[in-house]
């Protein structure tokens, strides 16, 4: 009798899960496995079926200078966006959490980029970067008399210009998580430290920042995933150019698979991205694990 009841509970649990799992497997797990399988085959063209070619795609990837370039770009993009946007997010949250003149306006200003489509804000920023005519050139021209600069057309500055837009877009989003965390820190801790004569900086360094560590871990994982996922603005701002100077890995996958229609090579590049994401998530977990103080 007891066993029978347990089995009914099992079946109910499985049945409740079934619809979600069907979709989850159909569009996440099975495609992930198929991506790995397809990376060992050639791209089917017309009547020509895909055939097993072993590691050929991987050999091509290793020898592909564009692959290394976009990988390097992505690393630079991650290094450029993550520390700055997370740092700004902490500062923003500290400001907005205190009594501040016009606090609700300031908070709104920081958060607004989060609700705007990245593709739409790219249009606005495109104008800012326009040589001669755009806002940046007008400001630098009026203040320092600099000549017109083509930020997006120059391989040295194109990726940095994209990093600036990304930081602007992301910082306010991360601020929200810090704001939530700050509000859960008991005020008595801060008061006790103030009685002991601790200054603002000491309080932040010794009390607030360590207590924010779990949030920082969460935000950093998000930021790392985003640094591989956010490519929308590239389509408008530079289209990966000039000479792939501002292309990121996901953008390159798009180009290979949907502009050149080399789906097998696209799958191979996707495998590289998947491996990279897993490695980063695991290593991040271990690095932070030692420093995170859970309550």
């Amino acid at each position, binding site marked *: 009798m007891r066993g029978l009841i347990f089995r009914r509970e099992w079946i109910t649990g499985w049945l409740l899960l079934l619809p979600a799992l069907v979709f989850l497997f159909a*569009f*996440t797990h099975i495609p992930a496995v198929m991506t790995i399988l397809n990376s060992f085959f050639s791209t089917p063209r017309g009547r020509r079926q895909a055939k097993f070619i072993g590691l050929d795609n991987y050999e091509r990837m290793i020898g592909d200078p564009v692959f290394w370039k976009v990988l390097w770009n992505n690393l630079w993009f991650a290094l450029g966006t993550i520390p700055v946007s997370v740092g700004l997010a902490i500062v923003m949250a500290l*400001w907005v959490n205190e009594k501040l003149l016009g606090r609700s306006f300031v908070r709104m200003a920081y958060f607004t980029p*989060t609700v705007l489509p990245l593709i*739409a804000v790219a249009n606005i920023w495109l104008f800012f970067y326009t040589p001669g005519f755009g806002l940046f050139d007008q400001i630098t021209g009026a203040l320092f008399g600099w000549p017109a600069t083509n930020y997006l057309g120059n391989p040295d500055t194109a990726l940095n210009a994209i990093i600036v837009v990304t930081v602007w877009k992301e910082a306010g989003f991360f601020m929200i998580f810090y704001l939530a965390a700050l509000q859960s820190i008991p005020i008595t801790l801060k008061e006790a430290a103030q009685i002991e004569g601790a200054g603002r900086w000491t309080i932040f360094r010794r009390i607030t920042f360590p207590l924010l560590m779990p949030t920082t871990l969460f935000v950093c994982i998000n930021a790392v995933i985003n640094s591989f996922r956010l490519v929308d603005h590239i389509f408008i701002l530079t289209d990966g150019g000039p000479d792939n100077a501002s292309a990121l890995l*996901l953008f390159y996958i798009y180009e290979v698979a949907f502009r050149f229609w080399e789906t097998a090579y696209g799958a191979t590049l996707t495998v590289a991205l998947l491996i990279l994401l897993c490695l980063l998530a695991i290593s991040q977990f271990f690095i932070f694990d030692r420093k995170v103080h859970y309550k």
Partner: protein
Amino acid sequence: MSGLATHLDRFLNVFAAWVLALIWVLPLVYAVWTAFHPAAYEARFELFAPLTLENFVKAWDAAPFARYFLNTFILVTMILAGQFFLCTLAAYAFARFVFPGRNILFALVLLQLLVMPDILMVENYQTMRLLHLVDTIPAIALPYIASGFGIFLLRQTFMTVPKELDEAARIEGASFLTVLWKVYIPLAKPTYLAYGLVSVSHHWNNFLWPLIVTNSVETRPVTVGLSVFSAIDSGVEWSVINAATLMTSGPLLIAFLLFQRQFVQSFMRAGIK
């Protein structure tokens, strides 16, 4: 610290916070400026420049934005309805039922937080071709409907519901689905609101996957429509592009400004794990 230094410190903080805030709204303010002024004032900032709605009219006439808006609306509704349905059932199973394989399945659900459908676009496109769904709105929606994030969020909420409530309802003879409907879902309303806002704003703004899987006016959401519209860059004026840009983000932006507190709190709630 002396009184003067404290005051100075305070002043500098407020000042810096405001400077950053102004920089942060500048792009939006600029877009509003150009959209509401004639093209001649694109880069000339005069206080009494004449206002106009001409740019919006031009943008609206130049591309089928009404259809794009309808597509986005259908898409966002479809995704949200699907997510609420599937995630609720799955979260209920994970929160209150004991069955073999529960932990492994939950780990597989969480894996989706790392490997998002966007990353698997090459393979998902093949699937859509196989299902003959390329260039349809369901094709944009399907990969996102079973959301690992949604399942996780609802499971956390359902686990905070007191077991006594659940048991009391069952003793009175309610089936497990009635309990879910009458006890769990009403208590999780704030989570649904939070998740709903996050989901709607995410999919309203989504671009890459819709770009790949659609190629006609009848299916394109506004983000893809906007990119198609502004890609014909030579002929279109900046002010018109900015008007179109504002239009596409408009509904979400207005909703955000009206319900600012709920938005911020929702994102906060969704972020606390």
